[in-house]
């Protein structure tokens, strides 16, 4: 049985994107540039109008780039592009400027190939100029995605030495240590940076890191003051969501609700996902998140579609979420779950899992989902190997999850008795540990296996499945029950009966 996380525990952990992709969302204090043309640029333009040579064209384009007024240098730009004598580096720099002005398009090549390319580029750049903290962090991200975590850690350390108070560097470093299951260190990096006290993005990350470490942030009061300071809503949205989460965790529902609603003003995809999750799990769907106008809402949209039972849409959004954060455990688990299960795309799930496991080699749920996906694809030996590779089972619920998958594998191998024992053990533990929905899902899976094989144990298994899923609310369980119903109906038609006894 595959599984996913995110139902019980979501923190507003900072997203870690490549620098170019993240900067628009984390910079406080925007100003609108002047529309006037400076005397300097005007002088360049006059020179160009008078003497349309290549080098005056280069000069006017240079001035226009500095003032973000390339619209005034279109003739000169045309000249640069058409003149074979234009220095190639000038064309490359102009192209880079244009890339920075337009949203980046999703690359068609795979995540791993893209990371390898990025590592090559970053290494070359850092060999030319090693004092670039951002490039070290970008390199760390690529290494993290590919699972070279020691190398990534060294890059993070270098980035932190070069820019110990930069927002991008601090947030990415904090995110890296959360990824490394070291939330204390993730918090420490932020707590010791003086800038954290004044920057809403850093404070939001600090609160999330503290919360991941299982403690309350000592900076909550500072955060509450800063939340009301003169920042753009876009700069405060994650901080508001982080404080709201802390308030709701502490039982302050009224404050939490207010902050969640405020967080929707200027929301980004991370804060929207947090608001939506808090609303669904803690408040019972009372907040209208449709007012938030977030352009690239991957995670929130994936969850929303999931709970609406729109599997195709949910899978599509989950894949975008995963491509955005390919090292994220939650993205990997959710994406593999939806692809291998409700969306019926186990081949794609396998691809996702291979990538996700590089950064999270020992993650039990990912390994369990890998085994489940292999079972779906009929690759039973691979499934067995995936289950055997699980080294540590931290909790009884995790153990039950593995037992359920083992049960499925045993059924597919033809060892029905072993399968039943595993499933029974899983269901028992789920019920004992309060995992009622998981128990219902495991029972449904068991019943499906029994009915498909038309075993004498089928009626009892079906009854148990329906009994344990009586109060469920999830669309994925509903879908599984429908599958079970259909299978039962086929069986009844075959046997000429009307009721299973």
């Amino acid at each position, binding site marked *: 049985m595959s599984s996913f996380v995110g139902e019980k525990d979501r923190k507003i952990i900072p997203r870690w994107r490549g*620098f*170019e992709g993240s*900067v*628009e969302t984390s*910079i*406080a*204090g*925007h*100003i609108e*540039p*002047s529309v006037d043309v*400076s*005397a*300097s*640029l*005007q*002088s*360049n333009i*006059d*020179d160009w109008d*008078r*003497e349309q*040579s*290549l*080098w005056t064209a*280069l*000069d006017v*384009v*240079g*001035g226009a*780039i*500095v003032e*973000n007024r390339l619209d005034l240098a279109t003739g000169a730009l045309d000249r640069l592009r058409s003149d074979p*004598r*234009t*220095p*190639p*580096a000038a064309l*490359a*720099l*102009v192209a*880079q*400027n244009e890339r*920075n*002005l337009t949203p980046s398009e999703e690359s068609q090549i795979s995540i791993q190939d893209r990371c390898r390319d990025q590592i090559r580029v970053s290494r070359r*750049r850092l060999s*030319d*100029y090693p*004092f*670039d*903290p*951002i*490039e070290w962090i970008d390199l760390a991200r690529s290494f993290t995605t590919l699972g070279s975590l020691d190398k990534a850690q060294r890059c993070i350390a270098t980035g932190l030495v070069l*820019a110990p*108070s*930069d*927002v*991008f*560097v601090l947030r990415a470093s904090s995110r890296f240590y959360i990824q490394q299951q070291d939330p204390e260190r993730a918090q420490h990096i932020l707590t010791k940076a003086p*800038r954290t006290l004044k920057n809403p993005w850093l404070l939001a990350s600090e609160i999330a890191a503290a919360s991941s470490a299982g403690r309350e942030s000592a900076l909550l009061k500072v955060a509450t003051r800063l939340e009301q300071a003169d920042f753009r809503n876009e700069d405060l949205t994650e901080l508001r969501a982080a404080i709201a989460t802390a308030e709701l965790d502490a039982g302050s529902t009224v404050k939490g609700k207010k902050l969640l609603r405020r967080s929707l003003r200027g929301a980004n995809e991370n804060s929207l996902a947090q608001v939506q999750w808090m609303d669904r799990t803690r408040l019972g769907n009372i907040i209208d998140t449709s007012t938030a106008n977030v352009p690239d809402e991957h995670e929130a949209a994936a969850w929303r579609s999931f709970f609406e039972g729109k599997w195709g849409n949910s899978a599509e959004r989950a894949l975008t979420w995963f491509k955005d954060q390919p090292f994220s455990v939650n993205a990997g688990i959710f994406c593999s779950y939806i692809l291998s299960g409700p969306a019926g795309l186990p081949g794609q799930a396998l691809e996702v899992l291979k990538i996700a496991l590089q950064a999270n080699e020992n993650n039990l749920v990912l390994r369990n989902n890998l085994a489940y996906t292999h079972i779906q694809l009929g690759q039973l030996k691979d499934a067995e190997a995936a289950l055997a590779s699980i080294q540590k089972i931290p909790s009884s619920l995790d153990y039950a999850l593995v037992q359920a998958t083992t049960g499925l594998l045993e059924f597919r191998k033809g060892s029905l008795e072993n399968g039943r024992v595993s499933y029974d053990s899983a269901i028992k533990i789920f019920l004992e540990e309060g995992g009622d929905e998981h128990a219902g899902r495991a029972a449904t899976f068991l019943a499906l296996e029994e009915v498909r094989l038309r075993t004498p144990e089928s009626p009892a298994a079906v009854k148990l499945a329906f009994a344990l899923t009586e109060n469920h609310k999830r669309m994925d369980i509903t879908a599984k029950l429908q599958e079970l119903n259909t299978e039962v109906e086929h069986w009844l038609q075959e046997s000429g009966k009307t009721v299973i006894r």
Partner: protein
Amino acid sequence: MLLGLTLDDGWIVTELLPRSLGQTGGTFSCSYKIEHPDGRKAFLKAIDYDMALTNSDPAGKLKELVDAFVFERTIVELCGNRKLSRVIRAQGSGTKTPPGKNVVQYLIFEMADGDIRKQLSQMPAFDLVWRLRCLHHVFVAIQQLHGSEIAHQDVKPSNVLGCGHEGHKIADLGRSWHAKTTSPFDSFGCAGDTNYAPPELLYSGCTLTEEERRLGADFYALGSMVIFMFTGLRMTAALMGAMPIDLRWNRTREPYANVLPQLQHAFGSVVSQLRIDIQSDELFSEIKLIVEQMCNPDISKRGDKKHTASIGTRFVLQRFISRLDTLATRAGFGKLGAI
């Protein structure tokens, strides 16, 4: 205004030159070509006080213009007296009253062939030796100025003029700084052209020593000239082009210290892009080193640190000049490989 008139020392004003010619804030000055009956040609820069009278604060504007003119005259005379060979020579100054107009003050400079943009555009092929030699001359010019306690503060391609067999010289000292003379631009955050200015002067919140503000800006501008010679773009444009739009100097209130990591990232990108145009590893590593030390966005990393201990300042150009001279000589012998 002066066209067709004969000046007191026999010069005849023969041609009004286009206004800007890259001059920073030259709105109130006019440039003329002048010829002497003995065949000499020169360049005349005249201050148009009449235009100042149309300003909303004519008295203030007049004072500003007079102060600026007097300052520039003082500086060019000082350069002349010290015989700075790489600075455009002033050949005189004076006043003339055109019929029906107010008095016009002027400075006469030696005539140049044109600025390097024009020269580069007329070159049929890439000439590495020429470019390195030109850079060498500009570096020497700034060294001569620094030796006279003057910071140019407005080094840019349009102020580097070709002077025939004499090579290249630096022009336009109107925005310069002199340790012993007060300039009307001393209080400006950025005295020179902002579009060529170093990032520490563009972003807010950077505390600078006088040396860093003046000599550091010249160092940056010289490094920018190196970038210009090889990529055609000034450093400020290359840096801003590589910065995300929301972090550019005219789009954010973030202080210099907060954007420095991003500027370093942009700088790293510019240094890497240099490889596209410089294939020779030896030349690339030399140019990279010069650019890194001349126009590092982090002002504290700019300059030649080897000199700090011995002479108390890192803003010393000697080693860069030697390096450029060696490079130009080696390139002349074809020893730098294909570019």
